């Protein structure tokens, strides 16, 4: 696969902007690190915050997740839930082999951009063989290849100081918000490859998110757009994602 640098992003720019993004994380988001966008009422909210803050505390060093040997890759990785969104635009793109698919990166970024699949493949590649863990109980191992989300945001000029969440929309109506703690993790990638091939239809073609350290329901498939926001208010019920709108815990590390 291609290894050339993306046209819009030189190494020098990357370094200067990585510093800016790091600064935001240190100043604005300390308490967010331990709480979901909207804390549920009663004891349930207390338990949510306890779980999230304990785990975030233990993960503060941003250690990578466990990787597996290539021989451990699951041969027939399950296709779960949505496998082909019933969406006119998606179907049109799919029939065109996703050559016309494009990803707007907007909101609280310094220079909004729209990336094609080819653009995405020109970012430094991150490949990882990890466990996909469904909250229902099943798990399977696959190799994922993609562009680090952090670098995609850098390509959009980095995020503004008030940025707190990255909201990803998907074809089929799903959306999910991620806080900066997960965004900066080196294994958080926009994955376009699975087990050395293009991402299959059932697993979220053309691009899905891999946000390791979370259950399967945070690994959004069929990605449509990315926007950076300061608050999850105004998205659905304001809980931070469609799953949590449906009463799942927004934080899915447990």
């Amino acid at each position: 696969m291609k290894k050339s640098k993306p046209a819009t992003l030189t190494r020098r720019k990357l370094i200067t902007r990585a510093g800016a993004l790091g600064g935001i994380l240190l100043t604005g988001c300390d308490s967010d690190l331990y709480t979901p966008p909207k804390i549920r009422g009663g004891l349930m909210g207390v338990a949510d915050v306890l779980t999230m803050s304990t785990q975030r505390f233990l993960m503060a060093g941003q250690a990578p997740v466990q990787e597996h040997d290539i021989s451990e890759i699951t041969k027939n990785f399950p296709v779960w839930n949505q496998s082909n969104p019933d969406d006119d635009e998606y179907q049109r793109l799919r029939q065109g082999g996703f050559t016309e698919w494009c990803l707007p990166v907007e909101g609280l970024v310094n220079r909004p951009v729209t990336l094609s699949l080819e653009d995405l493949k020109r970012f430094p590649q991150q490949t990882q063989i990890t466990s996909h863990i469904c909250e229902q109980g099943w798990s399977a191992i696959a190799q994922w290849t993609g562009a680090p989300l952090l670098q995609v945001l850098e390509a959009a000029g980095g995020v503004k100081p008030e940025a707190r969440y990255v909201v990803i929309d998907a074809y089929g109506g799903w959306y999910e918000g991620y806080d900066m703690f997960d965004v900066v993790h080196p294994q958080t990638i926009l994955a376009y490859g699975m087990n050395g091939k293009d991402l299959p239809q059932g697993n979220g073609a053309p691009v899905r998110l891999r946000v390791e350290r979370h259950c399967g329901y945070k690994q959004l498939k069929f990605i449509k757009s990315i926007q950076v926001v300061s608050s999850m208010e105004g998205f659905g019920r304001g809980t931070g994602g469609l799953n949590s709108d449906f009463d799942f815990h927004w934080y899915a590390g447990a």
Partner: protein
Amino acid sequence: MIFLQFPELYWGKVGFQGHPAVFRLSDWGLSWDEADALGDRRWGRNYHYLFAWVFVFNGIAYLGWNFWQKKFYKKMFPSREELRLEHIKTDILNHLHFRTSNTESARSYNSLQKISYVIVLFVLFPFMLLSGFAQMPAFTAISPELIDLFGGRQTARTLHVVCTLLLVLFVIIHLIEVFVAGAMNQIRSMITGKYALPSERDE
């Protein structure tokens, strides 16, 4: 409720529908759809973690208090004498014949009680927590070693369920024994500390 959403158990690092299973509820007459209809997995998960925290805080309070008061040493850890096979055999026979003690010894735990309480408190309870941790996605970053120790998260999940069944079994036997030994007397003694021996009750 959570188990009903995915009523199969596996061994090793991976497991999913179609993967060789060590237990399948569908083999026991309950199909996937029927099992699914019995539970709500969103609230199943929410309550699971809520009560996991209750379990943790209750456990800290209980263990802390009893270690501080040295009650484990005085009352619960079996003596060398009580761990002798002869002694345990007598106690097993007493239990099988539902022979309860009428004498001063009824005020303390017998050897079988002591052994089962120690297993529940210091083996099953910690095992429950650790096998739970080993299933969490966050622990693939926090402590992959723990997952490997179990031999993979699916093994941890299966053992988590086995451990649950053992604890349920313990509760059932415990409750039966309480009734055999006289429920009202036992409960009063738990709350007030006053335990009446049968000889006293007859007076």
